[in-house]
Structures are given as C-alpha cells and as structure tokens.
C-alpha cells in the first residue's frame, strides 16, 4: 500500500466519522421538528433560522455540564462503557457503500458484477468479501456498551435496563441475521458493493419482501427505538442504563443510538432499496462521457449515486421517526414473544422459500415475483393466526354477579 492510498484511507475515515456525527446532530433536530409536527406542536425553532443551530446549542450545553462519576460506581467500567457503545456504531460505516465514484475515471466498473479492472471507489472505505458478516459482527458487539453501562452505574434501574438490553438485543439479533442471510442467498455474495450491483432492474425488496419486513422490525428493536425501547423505558426505569451518566458521556450514548439508527437505515437501503442505484444512472454516465470524457462521467455518476443513496436514507429516517410518533411501547413479554415466536420462525421460513424458489425456478425474475407472493401470503397468514384472542380469564363477570343479585 503506497502512501497516497494510505492518505486517501485516512481522509475517508475522518470524513465518515465527522460526517456521521454531524448527521447525528441534525437527525436530532430533524426528529424533534417532525415529532412536534406529528403532535401538532412547533418544535425547537429559536436557535438560528428554523432551529438550524439547535444541535450546536445542545452540544455546547452538554460540554459545559459537570462531569460526575457516582462514588459507588465501578469506575473503570463506568468510563469504558460509553466508548464501547460508540465505537461499534462508527466502525460499522466502513463497509457501507455511499455511492460509486471511481477515481481513475472507470465508471463502467461500478455496474459490472465481476469487474475486469479493480474498482477504486472512494465512496466506500473498505470493499471486503465478508462485508455482510462484518456488519453482523459489529452489530453484535454493540450490546456491550449499554449492558456494561447499566452494570457499572451501581443503580438498580440502570442495572435492570442493562439486563433487559442484553436479553432483548441477543433475541432480535437472530431474526436480523436470518433476514440478512436470505438476502445473501438471493445475491450469492457477502460483499455489500456486489449486493448493490446485483440489484440492477429489481430492487431487493421484491424477492425479499418478507426479509424486508422482518429486517425493519428487528432493526428497530436492535437500535432500541420506541416501540421496543424497553431498555430505557422512562416511566418504569427512570432512564435505564444511562440514568447515572451526564455531560458528554450521556451524549455519547445518545449519539450511539442515533448513529446506529442511521446505520441500520443505510443497511436497509443497501439490501432492499438498491443502495445507490436509480434507473437511468448508467445512461447519465454514458451521456456525460460523450460530452466531457470519462473522468467527468465518473464524478457525475459518483455524485448522483451519492445523492440517490442519501435521499433513500432520509426517506428511511423519516419512516423511523413516523414509527416512533405512532406506536406506544410494547410490553416486555410481548416483545420476547414477537422476537422468538414470530420473527425468528418467519425468517427461517423465508430462508427455505428463498432456497427452494431459486433452485426450482430457473428464471430469476419469475423466482423473485414468486418469492414476493409467498412473502405477502405468509405475512397475511401470520397476522391472521396472531390475532389476540379474547382474554377469557381476565373478564369480570358482571352479568353473573347481577344474577346472583
């Protein structure tokens, strides 16, 4: 590796780390304004035009807060926990392709499943052949920050939050991994870039509709957002694992949650929404090449693909805020039931569907639509079975009592 490549790598890392932290800051503003709209309020609009400087004001406030370590806390682990939470959230971005900008001007290579010349894509830090496994490995390590914070604070509520997080995250990881596995089976590769390339024509949501639904539910649970935020349920656990944290250490947990949210949305875009692809991207590249040469075409394709990716990402983030505004928190036993008795079996079923469909039906497009039909059918049946029956034993027998007089 020569030093130019190393320099590019370092710049990429800096840009991504700073980019996702900025994205986190503005996601909080985005969410607060949107939530306010959903609830018929106005939301923060005082700092700067339309509240544009609100995240800056929040950051400054958090920096100047007193930094307290509880005297009975386990000091080393207490200090380590925020770092262990935030590091996985940031390193997960290494394998996510934001777009495809070949710095040598070889833009056609972006669209070839087996590139003849190696691609030099600067919009992805690491194109490795186990990208998907890397994503799963890093998400599975993300549990530690929360769990250890709960334990180290030496506070009963924090501890309950920590224990809940361990049980909850391990349960949903399984369904998440199985949903992702079906996507890998569909495209036959672990590389995130190759998965995006393979979604030419049909986006991943068509063959893997069932996986998409499971992935969205499990991913929301994995980032402990509202319908599944048992880990930090304010009404019962004060604030859960982060109760005893203040100042920037609290901000790091907050940051972790939102960066992870952006990350799972990005992963959903890559697996199910065609990543940086959109119809006409290749035509755009060809047109610009005719006008201004291959380098300009490469930059045009790169910027257009980056824009498409970010647009899809924002759409997913909007969806996630919408979900948060619409659903109340689940009960804990229901949460476990959903994860183990519904999502996991459905995900396993989906793996079977995928394998059988692609082996029996030689035409891939046909197989994709068959899978879509199977997925929708299965979801409808599952919802039919899952209707909550009348809780007979809990009914008060008013009529009986009246008859007894």
């Amino acid at each position, binding site marked *: 590796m020569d030093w130019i490549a190393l320099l590019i790598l370092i710049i990429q890392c800096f840009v991504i780390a700073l980019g996702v932290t900025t994205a986190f800051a503005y996601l909080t503003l985005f969410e607060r304004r949107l939530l306010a709209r959903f609830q018929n309020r106005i939301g923060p609009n005082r700092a700067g035009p339309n509240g544009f400087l609100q995240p800056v004001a929040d950051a400054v406030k958090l920096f100047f807060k007193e930094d307290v370590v509880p005297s009975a806390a386990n000091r080393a682990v207490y200090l380590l926990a925020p770092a262990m939470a935030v590091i996985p959230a940031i390193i997960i971005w290494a394998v996510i392709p934001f777009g495809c900008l070949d710095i040598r001007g070889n833009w056609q290579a972006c669209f070839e499943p087996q590139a003849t010349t190696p691609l030099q894509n600067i919009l992805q830090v690491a194109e490795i052949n*186990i990208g998907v496994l890397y994503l799963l490995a890093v998400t599975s390590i993300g549990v530690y920050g929360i769990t250890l914070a709960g334990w180290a604070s030496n506070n009963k509520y924090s501890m309950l939050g920590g224990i809940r997080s361990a049980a909850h995250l391990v349960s949903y990881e399984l369904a998440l991994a199985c949903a992702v596995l079906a996507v890998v089976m569909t495209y036959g590769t672990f590389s995130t870039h190759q998965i995006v390339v393979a979604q030419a024509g049909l986006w991943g949501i068509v063959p893997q509709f069932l996986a998409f639904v499971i992935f969205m539910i499990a991913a929301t649970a994995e980032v402990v957002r509202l319908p599944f935020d048992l880990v930090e349920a304010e009404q019962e656990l004060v604030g859960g694992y982060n109760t005893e944290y203040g100042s920037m250490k609290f901000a790091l947990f907050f940051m972790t949650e939102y960066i992870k949210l952006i990350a799972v949305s990005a992963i959903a875009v890559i697996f199910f929404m065609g990543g940086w692809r959109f119809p006409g991207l290749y035509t755009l590249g060809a047109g610009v090449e005719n006008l201004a040469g291959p380098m300009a075409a490469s930059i045009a394709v790169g910027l257009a693909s980056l824009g498409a990716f970010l647009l899809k990402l924002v759409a997913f983030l909007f969806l996630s805020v919408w979900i948060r505004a619409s659903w109340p928190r689940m009960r804990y036993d229901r949460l476990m039931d959903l994860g183990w008795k519904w999502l996991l079996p459905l995900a396993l079923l989906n793996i079977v569907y995928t394998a059988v469909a692609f082996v029996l039906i030689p035409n891939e497009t046909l197989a994709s639509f068959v899978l879509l039909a199977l997925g929708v059918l299965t979801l409808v049946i599952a919802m039919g079975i899952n209707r909550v029956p009348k809780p007979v034993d809990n009914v008060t027998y008013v009529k009986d009592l009246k008859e*007894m007089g």
Partner: protein
Amino acid sequence: MDTLIFIITAAIALIGAVAMVVARNAIHSALFLLLNFGAVAVLFLLLYSPFLFAIQLTVYAGAIMVLFLFVVMLLGAERIEDAPDQIAWQRPLGIGLGVVLMLVAMATALRASAFAPPPGGEALATFGDPAALAALLFTHYLLPFQITGIILLVAVIGVVVLNQRGRHRSEEAGREDARTRRREDARR
C-alpha cells in the same frame, strides 16, 4: 509490518488471558476475555481468514460473552470470587496441569517440521474465502457438519420442551386460581 501487528496483537491476547484469570471481579474477567477474543480475531485476519474473523466476533464476542455477562449480572455473582477457596488443592493442581499442557503444546510445536509457508499468489485469493469454506463443509466434511447441526437442533428442542413444561404447570395453576376465585365470587 505483519510481524509488528502480530507481536502487538499476541501481546494483547496474552495480557487479556492472564488478566482474565487474575481479576477478582467476574465482570472484569469477562471484559478481559472479550479483549482476548478480539485479539484472537485479529490474529485470524493476519492468517488470511476473514471468515473466521467475522465468526469469532459474532459467535464468541457477540453472543457467548453477552450471555455470560447476562447470567453474571442476573445472579449478582460478580463478587463471589472474594470468598476463600472451598477446595484447598484446587489452585496448585490447576496451575500444575496448566504448566503440563503448555509443555505438551511446546513439545508438539518444536517437533513439527518447519511452519508451512503461507499460500501465495492464486491460492491466497481464494484461501479462507467463505465460498471455498462452504464448498468444503458441504462436500468433504458433510457428515461432521450435519452431526453438529443435529446436536444443535436437539439442544434447541430441549430448551423449548423444558420451557414448555414449566409454563404448562404455572398456566394450569393460574387457571385453577381463576376458577376458584370465580367460584368464591359466585358464592359471595
């Protein structure tokens, strides 16, 4: 470059392993073991085995250690080590056996012929590749692979059965309770 990374990683792995044994607090031990797992995962990467790297992190660091932590936290067992040892001869025996194991390992390593050179060129490109690994698992090692699968399946079914049995009893008791309550209500 590779040698330097190897030395640093190996040192971290060793420190993690020793500290894990020495630490008095079970949670600290778990964290040091996690450090050790992470370092071993990096060693797999150095051996051109990205698949094992990912699996090591997912399975050991991501699942098994989380369950360890969960159990330790749930039982509040993190300070149990403070009590004096119940079995006096346990510690010397453990150290002795450890030394014997190390000697055996060293003897094996020294007796083996020169280390196999890392595969170069074309072999390296597919070495440790998930597809190559899967092909081996489904052809050459099919029987062991399937036996492992069946053992795991038995464990899963066992968990469900044990859980169902407990649940059944408590549900029966609950229904019984509800019935007696209703009867009492009616009597009143």
